[in-house]
């Protein structure tokens, strides 16, 4: 199984390295810009005070972020309000699509299934390789802020980044699990991409509506963007319900996917 995991990691490494590099460059940009932004903090706070609070919230910001302007508040409003969530979702969906349905679509699944490995072993080997790759991406996108802040002599709260890593990891794995379940179900990766991306977009729209209109506030509970908000970085408080929801989705998605993949017909055209 380890051989299969390692072979898959080597196979899928390039997109992960490219996404990780992009994420690192963004982190570097914000950390490097932080000292100069801090000096303009008062002006920015004045501008943002005039904006409706619900509008700021919809885009992962609040006026309190600026009244207490820290590296965490900057990253929370810029990097981890939407950019990271989108990057992680695209990467997770693309890895999942290639893992199973991509192999069926290309016809290479027969080569794998003709080897003396069980379907479940193949299923979990592919899943675990995806977990390793996503964990690498999430780790460099979150935890690397600590050494970068150190390098630029910026004050930071290290424990908040560890908490951010935990929530970001669970969010990424929850998206991955949904896409991986779809990958076990369908023989075309286009369907996996389409349905997964559609779900994430729908969740984001629900989150926006919930933030913009009080009467639609309950919509936020169906959105991953509510459970993984940038608050964790700013406030250092983990949403335990979010942790539970993400964990539940990971377990259910992977469990049902395993049953489907074990029992379905796998035939290339």
């Amino acid at each position, binding site marked *: 199984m380890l051989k299969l995991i390692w*072979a898959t990691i080597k196979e899928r490494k390039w997109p992960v390295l490219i996404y990780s590099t992009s994420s690192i460059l963004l982190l570097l940009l914000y950390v490097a810009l932080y000292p100069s932004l801090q000096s303009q903090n008062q002006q920015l706070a004045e501008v943002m005070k005039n904006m409706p609070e619900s509008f700021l919230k919809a885009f992962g910001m609040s006026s309190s972020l600026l009244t207490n302007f820290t590296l965490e508040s900057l990253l929370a409003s810029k990097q981890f309000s939407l950019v990271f969530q989108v990057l992680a979702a695209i990467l997770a969906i693309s890895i999942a699509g290639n893992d199973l349905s991509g192999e069926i679509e290309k016809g290479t699944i*027969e080569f794998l299934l*003709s080897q*003396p490995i069980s379907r479940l072993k193949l299923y979990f080997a592919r899943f675990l390789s995806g977990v390793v790759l996503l964990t690498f991406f999430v780790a460099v996108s979150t935890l690397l802020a600590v050494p970068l802040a150190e390098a630029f002599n910026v004050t930071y709260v290290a424990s908040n980044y560890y908490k951010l890593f935990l929530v970001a990891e669970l969010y990424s794995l929850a998206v991955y699990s949904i896409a991986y379940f779809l990958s076990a179900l369908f023989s075309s990766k286009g369907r996996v991409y389409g349905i997964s991306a559609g779900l994430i977009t729908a969740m984001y729209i629900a989150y926006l509506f919930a933030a913009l209109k009080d009467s639609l506030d309950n919509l936020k509970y169906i959105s991953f963007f509510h459970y993984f908000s940038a608050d964790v970085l700013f406030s250092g408080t983990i949403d335990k319900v979010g942790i539970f929801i993400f964990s539940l989705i990971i377990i259910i998605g992977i469990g049902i996917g395993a049953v489907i993949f074990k029992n379905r*017909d796998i035939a290339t055209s």
Partner: protein
Amino acid sequence: MAKVIELHNLVKHFGEVHAVDGISFVVEKGEIFGFLGPNGAGKTTTIRCMMDFIRPQEGEIKILGKDAQKDSVSLKEKIGYLSDTPLFYGHWSVGKHFAFQQALRGCSKNLSNLLEKFDLNPKLRFSSLSSGNKRKLSIILALMNNPEILILDEPTLALDPLLQNAFHLYIENFAKTGGTVFMSSHNLSEVEKICDRVGIIKDGKMVAVEKISELKLMKMYDVSFHSENVNPKIFADKNTQIVSHTNGIVLLKVKGDINPLIKKLATVKLKDLEITHVSLEDIFMEFYSPQLNAFGNPAAENSTAGLFNGARIPSKQNKDN
């Protein structure tokens, strides 16, 4: 002889399409078993069930006495499989495919020998290979880990005659040393040349499982005679068809009992007479052709001709007809 592959009443339907509809047969140790049928007859579906890629609705597949689904992993250690379409990783080299398989199945003892025999460069990228080289890669992957059983779907498609010959020799030697081969093919001369027995599948049903030597003995004859002033129409009946009549030379094809024709011929003054068994290809065509029988003429309603027309829906088909 030990039974190596056993299929009992295998059924696989895709919705209303009866791809495989209750087939049964046995392949014994050391045998080369040819699996014949036109496109859509159910050959690949049967093979995919044997390889546990797809699951039958009914029936049982046993390989080496084990259940092909429950014991799939341990069986695949002993099976060399070749798909009808060689689909591998385009950006991998040929050698990387071998390395990957060896990582999962253990080191191959005959890889260098196979590479030499089939003349394949392991440094080439799969995406740059010709269709013949892709087929060579499939063959080597099927043979390289010392399998006990070979399950091959159209193995010599796209191979040139020299390589086909090399492959046939390898397979014959493999069977002589105790290996068992199950291969589907469209190539009748190949089947005639290397197979011990054939199973013929049509519309998902087995219509014949015979030894090649017994198929050749099917009561089908080419009759040629030379006689002046004879009306060949007197020989035509439901079993005898006139192929040609030129300058007193009459060619007939006979299916079934030849004695009625012999009696008629005894009433005619003959200058020459020759009776031979028809070719194996003609016999197969008797099963294959939907409209033409072995004589190249429309099949009789009660004939076994016209059997092969791909998988279809029996009830619907009857209504349509």
